[in-house]
């Protein structure tokens, strides 16, 4: 049986106490790790397939969209499933991450009201959960791409690194903000669900990014609107960069035999610029979200 070590007189105990008090209030990797493990365990406990379910959901969605957009609404995009999947996985990671985070504090009321710990790990764990799922899903995407003959092992693939980073920062920022707001206004999580549904269609996931470009040009609208579309919507940047990194095919030939732009841009600069602006937006949002969370968290135990 562990016996507490006796307190020795002197400064060291005081110093240790201060350090420990700080440690208890800080977000530690160990704790975050434990929280994510916990939620994974709770979610898949007792199911035969276990973690495989985290693949089932996006793969099932993918199958539905694939059937509809290949056979019902015909499109001539080659290897449409790879194009679809690279955007879909990125966006699903974002939307589930934010939704998980939104309900994270309210769902853990029992902990919040009875244990002192850095509450910000709750939304972070919610986001972390969806990132773990993404980490399981990406290898599946890569295997499917290679089997389908989409060899993505070229230079553009490196773009996936900053794209993932932006995805993490932006999801964390938005997740933290909605988690804090949801404690006071329970409407937040409902609103988030609707917003995610709409946001999904705002990004070139099912349709080609080139489609947006054509729509703007055909209507005679100024071309900078196309740039603005990516600059104000970091998720469009993440999705389009994922497609550039994995799918890589920039043009396709449509049913009438015309060559059409498929990806948002055939080059690199476009993506790097969008990513840079995306990081600024996500960074500012993260700063604001943390500030809001820190300001509101002292009242969480009471509000729940």
């Amino acid at each position, binding site marked *: 049986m562990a016996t507490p070590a006796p*307190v020795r007189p002197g400064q060291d105990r005081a110093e240790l106490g201060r350090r420990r008090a700080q440690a208890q209030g800080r977000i530690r990797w160990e704790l975050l790790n434990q929280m994510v493990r916990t939620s994974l365990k709770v979610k898949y406990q007792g199911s035969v397939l276990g973690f495989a379910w985290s693949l089932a959901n996006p793969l099932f969605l993918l199958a539905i969209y694939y059937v509809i957009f290949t056979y019902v609404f015909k499109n001539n995009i080659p290897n449409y499933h790879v194009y679809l999947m690279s955007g879909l996985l990125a966006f699903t990671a974002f939307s589930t991450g934010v939704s998980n985070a939104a309900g994270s504090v309210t769902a853990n009321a029992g902990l919040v009201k009875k244990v002192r710990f850095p509450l910000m790990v709750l939304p972070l764990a919610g986001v972390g959960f969806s990132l773990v799922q993404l980490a399981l899903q990406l290898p599946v995407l890569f295997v499917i791409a290679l089997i389908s003959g989409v060899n993505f092992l070229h230079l553009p693939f490196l773009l996936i690194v900053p794209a993932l980073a932006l995805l993490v920062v932006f999801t964390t920022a938005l997740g933290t903000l909605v988690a804090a707001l949801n404690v006071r206004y329970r409407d937040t999580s409902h609103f988030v669900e609707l917003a995610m549904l709409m946001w999904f269609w705002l990004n070139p996931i099912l349709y080609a990014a080139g489609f947006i470009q054509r729509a703007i040009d055909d209507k005679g609208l100024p071309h900078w609107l196309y740039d603005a579309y990516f600059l104000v919507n970091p998720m469009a940047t993440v999705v389009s960069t994922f497609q550039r990194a994995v799918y890589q095919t920039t043009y396709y030939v449509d049913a009438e035999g015309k060559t059409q732009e498929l990806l948002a841009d055939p080059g690199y600069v476009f993506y790097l610029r969008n990513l840079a602006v995306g990081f600024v937006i996500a960074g500012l949002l993260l700063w604001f979200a943390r500030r809001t969370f820190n300001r509101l968290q002292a009242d969480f135990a009471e509000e729940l």
Partner: protein
Amino acid sequence: MSSSERRPVIVARGVSKSFTTHRSKATQLKERVVRGRGQGTETFQALTDVNVVVGEGETVGLIGPNGAGKSTLLKILAGILRPTTGEVDVQGRIASLLELGAGFNGELSGRENVYLNAALLGLSRREVEGLFDSIVDFSEQGQRIDDPVKHYSSGEYVKLAFSIAVHVDPDVLLIDEVLAVGDEAFARKCLGKIREFQEAGRTILFVTHSLDLVTELCTRGIVVDHGKVQYDGDPAFAVGTLRRILGTDRPEGEPEPVPDLGGIQILSATVSAKPGGRRAAKLKAGQPFHLRVELEVEPRKEEQYAGLVHAVVMGAGDIPLWSMRTPKTDVVPAVPGRYVTEFVVPAVPPLNGAYRIGIQVEDPVSGNPVSVRVFDDVFWVTSGDLPGILSVPFSSEVRPA
């Protein structure tokens, strides 16, 4: 207690807490918009200006009637609730057992909950692995540790929670009336563990309704009532103070006190260090002590009584410590007017703590009380810095054996 020399571990200054009552709480945006800000809010004052400093190594019993604010105070000290005003500072790792199953996830097994809980308390996975076996041993769960905790009984919950809390090597242990749930054998084990913590110089603060535990275990007792600290000091006196608040300081079914015959009013009873001096709030053991009682014999048509003045000096819980009575030859006469009776004690006895004075005027013939009054102004007797109720004279020397 002379906590001043110890390193303060828990410091609460001017802590007040008010809650917005649930009825008026708007959790939906709609309600907020409809009501507007700050409209229709009702508040409940749970704590008012609480000042507590707990030093390293103290064991404090926090006692009080139901709804007095004890649990709120504990939650504020634990850093879970924010005080409305005031400051709280706690130095060190805090392990708290605030409610049954606090911090447990019902879906997870006991084993996984141990890891989760310890992580919340600031331990690394490796540290938990080293402690795991002794946590399970102490909690007496054995094979049950792999069952989901939602299937645990309340006793098993507490056993596991307590076991985790004491194994994470906390600097401060906060316990809210949960130990009562375990069986007696486990309760004894918990007490043993708490004693180990005391010996190791850790700080413990617990809320309890079992007052015997306070006198047995604590070095200090704090009585909270109506959100205020009513008493802070010696555990036995704390228990006495609470019993007085609860009205349980006298046995039930005690015969009704003899009704006053009346006619003599007790105006005041003043304790002072010098004859006719100012009211003393603090006296040192060994100091002379004067008790001045002012009385008024009221003119009346009924039978007029003379009176013996009987002063009872009481400790906490209104335990009579000693009595003083004027002799039958020197009574307050049955003549209307004001009188003063003065008692002189050449040396205050070496009994530390809070004292109160009760005065009874008795009919010198029958001994029946004519008038009774208990004065609530407390005065304190102290002697030096050494803890304990009694100051016993002693000498000591150090010499080579």
